[in-house]
């Protein structure tokens, strides 16, 4: 059953991408596409890239080398879009709060630099395969992207948890789906890139990756389309307020 080109294999590769197109259509109809443009573009292009890769895999006219070229192109596009999407998640989560935005930006940039350096070290220590450089290079690129991506997402979750800040439901859902996918993919690509499993048994990793991607798309469906609990507060007229004075006072805390 866990064989390449089995029914389950075809289903797991194609179904989440078709579901992503449906999700994109539904969020576009609900106006969420304008609210989360990076997610919308990422979802559309990811689905296109994955289906193009699937077509390259099943088409007998596409050579192995061309398949890996398509894979590289998709990886570079998806990788870039993921980091733009993480920027959007960060801005949606903390951008509204001036007190956190500056500190958060400083920290996420610092952590980003540390993660890039760590990923570079990890790639440098991975075994090289001169004969199939395009394949091992793709594995290494996957490991690099997922290492940085999962690190940045862990930071976003840790930062919000540290301040007990609850992310808005759609933002939380997008981040959760992306994070689950990034963590599982990091583990599987680390195994693949470092040659832990023999080539004939790596198919299991593909199934795990594809199943996780299915789960990710379902998480996005749930958090973006199913409404959450809404707390209704009674409407009371606003009395005289001193919030501006308080804000000035609190500014003194940051720059005493």
């Amino acid at each position, binding site marked *: 059953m866990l064989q390449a080109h089995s029914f389950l294999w075809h289903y797991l590769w194609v179904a989440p991408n078709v579901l992503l197109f449906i999700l994109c259509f539904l969020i576009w109809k609900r106006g969420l596409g304008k609210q989360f443009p990076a997610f919308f573009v990422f979802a559309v292009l990811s689905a296109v890239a994955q289906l193009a890769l699937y077509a390259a895999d099943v088409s007998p006219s596409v050579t192995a080398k061309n398949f890996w070229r398509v894979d590289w192109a998709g990886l570079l596009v998806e990788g870039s879009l993921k980091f733009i999407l993480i920027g959007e998640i960060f801005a949606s989560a903390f951008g*509204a709060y001036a*007190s956190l935005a500056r500190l958060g930006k400083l920290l996420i940039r610092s952590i980003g630099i540390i993660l890039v350096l760590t990923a570079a070290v990890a790639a440098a220590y991975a075994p090289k395969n001169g004969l199939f450089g395009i394949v091992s290079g793709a594995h290494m690129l996957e490991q690099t992207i997922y290492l940085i991506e999962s690190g940045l997402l*862990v930071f976003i979750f840790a930062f919000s948890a540290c301040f007990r800040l609850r992310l808005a439901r759609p933002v939380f859902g997008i981040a959760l789906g992306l*994070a689950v996918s990034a963590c599982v993919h990091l*583990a599987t690509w680390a195994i693949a890139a470092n040659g832990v499993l023999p080539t004939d048994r790596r198919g299991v990793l593909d199934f795990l990756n594809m199943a996780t991607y299915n789960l990710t798309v379902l998480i996005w469906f749930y958090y973006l389309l199913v409404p959450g609990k809404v*707390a209704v507060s009674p409407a009371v007229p606003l009395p005289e307020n001193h919030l501006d004075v308080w*804000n000035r006072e609190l500014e003194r805390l940051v720059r005493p």
Partner: protein
Amino acid sequence: MTLAIILVIAAALALIFILGVAFSRSLQISAGASLANQIHPIDVEAFRTLVDPAEDDYLRRRLPAAEFRLVRRERLRAMAAYVQTAGRNAAVLVRMGQAALTSANPDTAEAARRLVDNALLLRRNAAFALLRIYLALAWPNSGLAATPILHGYEQLNGSAMLLGRLQNPAAPVRISARF
């Protein structure tokens, strides 16, 4: 091989952490009603005395150096306890403010947004203040300005009371024992 094992363990820990955050989020939503009970009022006057630099100067002049360091450390520990409580109260106020953000009344929603912003600022400053307090515990003779935290907490108390009055005029939220 070793690198792969390290990365797999790191990925597993990251996944467990993220799922833990997701689980605690669902608990937060269900426990939303009892938030006001989680606030521990702080005696602001006692804290003000504790952070007063004049008090430190007085003790430094009156006590031998070794005894002063002991007393100073005790005062710093007490200060840390106050700041931790202020930080915890700020965290509760963040959640209360976020719960009110969806209010249909734009004034309440705006007051809630400002409360959240103020509470986040206080929580951030409380974290920095704790760091300074712990550093001062290592070097008790160094100066420490924790007074800005006090100002921030006083303003936050007013901010919370305003939101409390907006939501329930009969029972405003009070986060200071004396104010």
